[in-house]
């Protein structure tokens, strides 16, 4: 497949506006503003079938269409660059190596939703991406791509980078808004949805970096072209896959939506790290999605195929585990993460994540009891669906799936009082 999202990243000085424009950058932007109306841009994106790349896979154009057409209050576009899901590192690459792609897509989207300000909320640990983005934004302002009367139109929109302070929860869209408002990053109950009442109570759209980076291509080449990539109209477009774990060449790979998982591992990723250690499991969408057993891995990496397989594409953080992996240990590490990152606002997640982590700690340390395995799953069941935001679900799904799919390994841990996988490896 032709490289789309990553076409610039290997060029020398790829973050500069000159390189970006020489490669055809900002053509879509100039084409759309002001000759295309905001609704026309939304319509194209709707037609393209573009779905959110941040995790939930919500149709992007549909989300934009929830924004009011009449402006009674300022509109905001918030670019979610708080990429923190374990196993996910695609947005960082775009921001570091092709910041103008992010900017062009973001500003086109800001135009579509009639935004007055576009904030790029960058994860606190992303020092370099924030620096690169800021330099690129200054270039964009100098060229008149942001600020007052953009491209000679009567539309004005500011573009601002805001750096987070290192909390995973701030990648949850409503927590991101609260954090950006200057408060503690707590998620909000829905409804109201951000398009009704978001940032400072104003109509707001929040999109992931990679999602927005697709927009300029859709405008430049058309929705129909976008639909030719990927299996169907609900799973379309180019996609970045973050491959990590026990493979020879981990990294970010671009492919069409619906790339077969085994092709990613064996062709792009160069195969398993060690020939003598076969594939055991894959988490296909960042640490929060249900794990797949090796025999379930003949699956295509798109929203609907993975949904059918009982997992999710999530943020496309593909974590590959070979036979040397202790699933109790792996789950303990994941549970530790969610315990550490639970914001503590609502009861089930605040108390449940710590409880699950402690049970796993005990099993791992050889002090587990048989009833702990059911207890663990039940605690996860009690969190799932009962929390304000999806972090509760994100903490529960891996526990439920690990226990369901690798129960014998948990039982072996309890019976032996130690890890049988690591000691045999």
């Amino acid at each position, binding site marked *: 497949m032709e490289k789309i999202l990553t076409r610039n990243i290997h060029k020398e000085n790829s973050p500069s506006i000159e390189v970006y424009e020489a490669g055809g950058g900002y053509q879509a932007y100039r084409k759309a503003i002001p000759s295309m109306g905001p609704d026309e841009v939304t319509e194209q994106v709707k037609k393209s079938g573009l779905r959110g790349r941040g995790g939930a896979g919500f149709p992007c154009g549909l989300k934009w269409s929830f924004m009011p057409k009449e402006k009674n209050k300022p509109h905001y576009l918030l670019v979610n660059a708080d990429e923190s899901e374990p196993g996910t590192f695609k947005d960082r690459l775009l921001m570091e190596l092709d910041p103008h792609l992010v900017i062009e897509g973001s500003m086109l989207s800001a135009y579509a939703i009639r935004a007055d300000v576009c904030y790029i909320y960058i994860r606190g640990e992303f020092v370099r991406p924030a620096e690169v983005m800021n330099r690129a934004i200054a270039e964009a302002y100098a060229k008149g791509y942001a600020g007052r009367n953009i491209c000679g139109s009567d539309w004005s929109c500011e573009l601002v980078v805001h750096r987070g302070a290192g909390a995973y929860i701030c990648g949850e869209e409503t927590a991101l808004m609260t954090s950006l408002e200057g408060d*503690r990053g707590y998620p909000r*109950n829905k409804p109201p949805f951000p398009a009704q009442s978001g940032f400072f109570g104003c109509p707001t759209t929040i999109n992931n970096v990679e999602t927005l980076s697709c927009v300029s291509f859709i405008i430049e080449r058309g929705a129909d072209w976008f639909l030719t990539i990927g299996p169907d109209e609900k799973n379309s477009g180019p996609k970045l896959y973050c491959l990590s774990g026990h493979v020879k060449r981990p990294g970010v790979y671009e492919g069409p939506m619906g790339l077969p998982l085994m092709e990613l591992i064996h062709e792009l990723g160069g195969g398993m790290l060690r020939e003598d250690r076969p594939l055991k499991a894959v988490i296909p969408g960042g640490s929060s999605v249900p794990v797949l057993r090796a025999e379930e891995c003949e699956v295509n990496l798109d929203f609907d195929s993975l949904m059918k397989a009982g997992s999710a594409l999530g943020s496309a953080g593909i974590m590959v585990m070979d036979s040397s992996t202790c699933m109790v240990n792996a789950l303990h590490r994941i549970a530790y993460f969610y315990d550490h990152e639970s914001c*503590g606002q609502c*009861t*089930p997640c*605040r108390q449940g*994540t710590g409880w699950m982590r402690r049970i796993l700690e005990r099993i791992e340390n050889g002090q587990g009891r048989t009833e702990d395995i059911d207890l663990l799953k039940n605690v996860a069941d*009690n969190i799932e669906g009962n929390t304000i935001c999806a972090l509760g679900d994100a903490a529960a799904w891996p526990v439920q799936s690990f226990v369901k799919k690798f129960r014998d390994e948990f039982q072996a841990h309890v019976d032996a009082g130690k890890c049988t996988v690591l000691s045999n490896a």
Partner: protein
Amino acid sequence: MPKFTLDGEEIEAPAGTTILQAALSRGKEIPHFCYHPGLSVVGNCRICLVEVEKAPKLVIACWSPVQDGMVVHTQTEKIKEAQNAVMEFLLINHPLDCPICDQAGECKLQDQAVEYGTGVSRYTEPKLALAKAVDIGKHVMLDQERCIQCSRCIRFCDEITGTGELAFFQRGERSQIGVFPGKRLDNPYSGNVVDICPVGALTLKEFRFKTRVWYLENTPSICAGCARGCNVMVATGTQQQLMTTRGQQDDRIKRIVPRVNPEVNGHWMCDEGRLSHQRLDAVGRLEQAASPAGTPVEWEAAVERAAGQIKTAAEAGRLGLVVSPRLTTETMFAWKRLLDALGGAKVGVHRIERGGDDALLILRDKGANSTGARWVFGEGAAADDVLGAAACGEIDTLVVLGDALDPEDSVQVTEEARSRLQHLVYVGSFEDAAAGQATLVLPAAAWAEEDGTLVNFDGRIQRLRRAHLPRGERRPGWRVAADLAADAGIEMPDWSSAADVLDSLAAGVGPYQGLNEEKIGMLGVPAAAAATGA
């Protein structure tokens, strides 16, 4: 109005009403911790989960507005499981120290654990050990372990007082409430966070460890601290405690908490009012008639002497009366009636003013019945005029009706006035300055010792109720007037209770027209309604 179904019952509720509000207003209990009717809704405790047909998952009743055609279930097996689960989560790191916790007996966590919990915990790990007895403000102590992070106290300081001293610190199960560095929870309404804390995490320094709440007897009454007239519950010790712990009479006031009245104080009250009962014991109390101060005499003898002095002065047109603005309208009315019958007196109402009006409840006018005094004695009657008249020698006998709540708030009789007075009759509850100067002292009931009515700044007539029996020989001010009348041979109605005086008031004072205790009720009535007899 949206029509919806709640557990099979079709209900109409105004648009915007949440499922929880609709249920509560129909007397249906849905468990909740973080929801408080006086604060914004955050939906963080998650125990009010209910099932809404066609919704993909359980929804929280406190957040979800009712919608036309909505079908809500609150009693299904799925909800029971969810409630059990949330209850279990709330308790895993809770110390379960009810036996030594002040909140026990009025703890929402305790009550709802009984109602909605399973009674057992599957949590076998060590509980989090957090700071206990943290001194966060002048009146408030914090126990981090008991806190269930409902954020009511934080919202109170953000939304009601706007002072924002409190916040969450840390994350996840390690999150704790606390004061910002360098700040203390010292706003004038800080005690309210103790009331709204659903658990024993926030306790009032002045109440903690004093008593178990089930030994308290609560009397609905009115705070006499200022002209706002906040509705309160006055809690006193009871006989039961006497038998188990102290072996002696202990019906003193243990605490005062606000009582909800949307027309007056909402859900809140100020710290000054909350602790006003401490003022009742600030100096020695008067329990016996005396003439002069310090020399006890029989009540009858004292009344005889006082009646004689007052009658003589009144007939000579040389009688003065200074009235505290914190007395009941009943007492004021009885004295007015007595003096009118005797031939009149120069009457002045003492003014107590401190600070300014704030945006919430506190008023500069500390006279809880300034309005009632105006209604009885008319406009313009000032205590200073009466004292001035005494200093000029225009009157030779002065009756002081002392303050019922705070000994420091009784009128100060100037040395100049005192020196020219022949008789100074003090009717009050405290051995305060005026009492010390008196030639004759008649003990009268203090604020919590009598029934009656007070009229707030807004002209709202509200009922004060007796929380405990008067100490010693103290009796209500209206009864003192009646005793004096009887001795002076004045015909007065045969009053045997404050309700009887109220009947006379209802016939004699315009805004009280047609009222009785029942009509005034728990929440009082505005004067306008009273005037039209509604």
